[in-house]
């Protein structure tokens, strides 16, 4: 009962205050504009010498990479939105946001929601200059969405759907709804040795090493820089 009365009182004071403001003409209060975050976060990467030690890129390559990076992200870090926007420019026909999200997760190794230049360069160093094992490990890490050491069919299905989404609507032959699923089935058939429904990292690396095509295609982008 006292609660009811308290509530009544609160409502009445609210109404009275509203009426007072109505009479005085101060009904609309200036809302403090604290919505926009001043992204004055400016991240500077480590020195080029250090990066050169830690990655396998030459000085010139690092320069080219940083210039491109800084051009799109003057603040020095890429957040996921930016990342998705940049990546979508290369795939205008489809929707690359999901795959870009997975990529972002793979590059953002310290899970702080932004990719700095160091993360960027470390990732690229593995992909472009790493050993085959390193690269396969990186690909496995990309597929393993929850980072638990094995790829389940659902995770693979998500990845596959995101890749197929990048193709867009206008394809030949027309994209069937179960195309990703079929692809996942064939993938698991190839990779899952002990047929336990998940692909572990050893199975993955072993199966990939046995496949000529995959081995060849892993070396495809060695000289993109």
């Amino acid at each position, binding site marked *: 009962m006292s609660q009811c009365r308290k509530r009544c009182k609160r409502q009445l004071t609210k109404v009275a205050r509203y009426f007072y403001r109505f009479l005085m003409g101060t009904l609309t209060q200036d809302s403090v504009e604290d919505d926009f975050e001043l992204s004055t976060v400016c991240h500077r990467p480590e020195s080029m010498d250090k990066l050169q030690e830690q990655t396998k890129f030459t000085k010139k390559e690092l320069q*080219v*990479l940083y*210039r*491109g*990076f800084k*051009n*799109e992200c003057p603040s020095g870090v890429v957040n996921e939105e930016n990342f998705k926007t*940049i*990546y979508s*420019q*290369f*795939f*205008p*026909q489809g929707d690359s946001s999901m*795959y870009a999200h*997975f*990529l972002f997760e*793979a590059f953002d190794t310290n899970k702080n929601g932004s990719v700095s230049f160091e993360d*960027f360069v470390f990732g*690229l160093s593995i*992909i*472009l200059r790493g050993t085959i094992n390193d*690269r*396969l490990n*990186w*690909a496995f890490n*990309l*597929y393993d969405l929850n980072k638990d050491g094995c790829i389940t069919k659902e995770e693979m299905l998500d*990845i*596959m759907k995101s*890749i*197929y989404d*990048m*193709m*867009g*609507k*206008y*394809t*030949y*032959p*027309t*994209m*069937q709804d179960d*195309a990703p699923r079929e*692809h996942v089935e*064939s*993938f698991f058939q190839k*990779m899952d040795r002990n047929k336990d429904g998940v692909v572990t990292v050893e199975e*993955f690396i072993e199966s*990939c090493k046995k496949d000529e*095509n*995959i081995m*060849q*295609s*892993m070396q*495809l*982008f060695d*000289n*993109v*820089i």
Partner: protein
Amino acid sequence: MAAGVAAWLPFARAAAIGWMPVASTPMPTPPQDKRKAQDGLIILNVSGTKFQTWRTTLERYPDTLLGSTERDFFFHEETNEYFFDRDPDIFRHILNFYRTGKLHYPRQECISAYDEELAFFGIIPEIIGDCCYEEYKDRRRENAERLQDDEEMDMNNDVTPVNLTFREYLWRAFENPHTSTLALVFYYVTGFFIAISVMANVVETVPCGTLPNRSKEISCGDRYALAFFCLDTACVMIFTVEYLLRLIAAPSRYKFMKSVMSVIDVVAIMPYYIGLVMTDNDQVSGAFVTLRVFRVFRIFKFSRHSAGLRILGYTLKSCASELGFLLFSLTMAIIIFATVMFYAEKGSSASKFTSIPAAFWYTIVTMTTLGYGDMVPKTIVGKVFGSICSLSGVLVIALPVPVIVSNFSRIYHQSQRAEKRRAQRKTRLARIRAAKIRGTNAYMRYKQNGLLIDSLEEASKEAGQALVGKAATPPFESQHHHLLHCLEKTTNHEFVDEQTFQANCMEISVMNKSGSRTSSLSSSPHGLSSCCSRRHRKKSSFSLPSTNNQELSTIQIRERPVANSRSSLNAKLDETVPLKCDEPYITPSMVSLSAPVVTSSDGDSSTTTAYSQSNIVRVSAL
């Protein structure tokens, strides 16, 4: 569009490693980057101001002057730089376009100078960024209008009356009275007679003293009936002649008769003729008197003589919705208060508020703060509500009026801008679509080029000749296309453009209809063959066998050999793969078309339209 983020292309390509374990087919080979070690600085000397940039920055846009070999024409050997004898201030923006991918328009520059620079450097203005596009278009339109006005003035001064026909001369005299003295005279005479006619209408009704044998006053019109009648006749004759002459001279009589001014003319002179026709019949004389009211419309004929009246009419027309809303809200308030007043005053005796419509009059008079005093509330409740009514009247009427006055200009400009934006939006969407289609077609061409190169390689290997050189595609473009090609290989699907996609749908609907006729609906295991690319394939270096020239009216289903075999280049038909389409209508089948060699984007659009035509086989020659 992707050239703006060209610096990230290496990253996008590296990220493609994620597709590799998933793909089941081998990836295409990457393009050889022959000019690897050429990322140097280029010095651009524009009238003394030196700009420097990376070579790769400029080469992002290979269809402009700076990005192509055209800049070699401006290379200055002695100083080892590229010299351009152009405006350095505007060049700054052009160079920024290469750097950022966005073209901005500086507001302080002259629009024609800017356009000239853009044209010189081969940049199309349509890619101006959204931030500056409106301004650019506005200035351009103003400039175009100014040029057009200049042209018109010149034309008006140049064209001599001798060259016009009599009819055109007459029309010109009516529309622009200051072209000849005769027209000017006519203009002033008609104006004078309009004024005379209106004044006569007014004076007609003034009481003019009494007749000797009557006691009450009669109006001047009745007293000097003959004089007024003669005056009226003269005016109407002038107006009739003017109207007929305008009708004869008008270039489009139908359009003239529909125009507002001609309607006003007709309405102004009709009462007189109707009055002539009708005799002094008592039954219709009442109606005849009403018709005389229309004579006052002659005053609107002044709008030909006054531009201000025309502008007022136009602004009223454009603010019609605001006025309409004001009227509507007023009506609502009137009805509410009239109802309240009626019921409040119902009790009092001898109340003037006999019905709600009768109370309307009170409400209107009170709300507009006129207060004639012919109807006043007598009960206390009535007075209370009457005062609320008059207070709210001030709010309802006095507030919107200045708002509407300012709304005039605001709405006028706003509607202009909304129209512009709507038109621009369509063109902007069209631009985006065109860019997408260009990108797709560029990619198709790349694939054809790639396959053609491979086939040429094979052929030349057999013949032992050197490789035929192909047109150099920029390294960025070819790398991007290679990336898209890898994606296709990973998913075992191909990119097609919209028209081909719909054409496929149509095909399959036909196939589904004719599937009952042909017994074997063999879906080959190579369902995912690259039939599309075969359809687009350039048969430039191979001549078509003559059998291809026949038209095919039904789809024939065939077993298909291995997908990418070169020997099946000249295949006629497409694979029947069950596609998911629901178009129910039947169309004749598409035969494989050969696209002519295209190098420009205009050619792209023509090839895409060509695909929509069926039953046409074109043989292209190299």
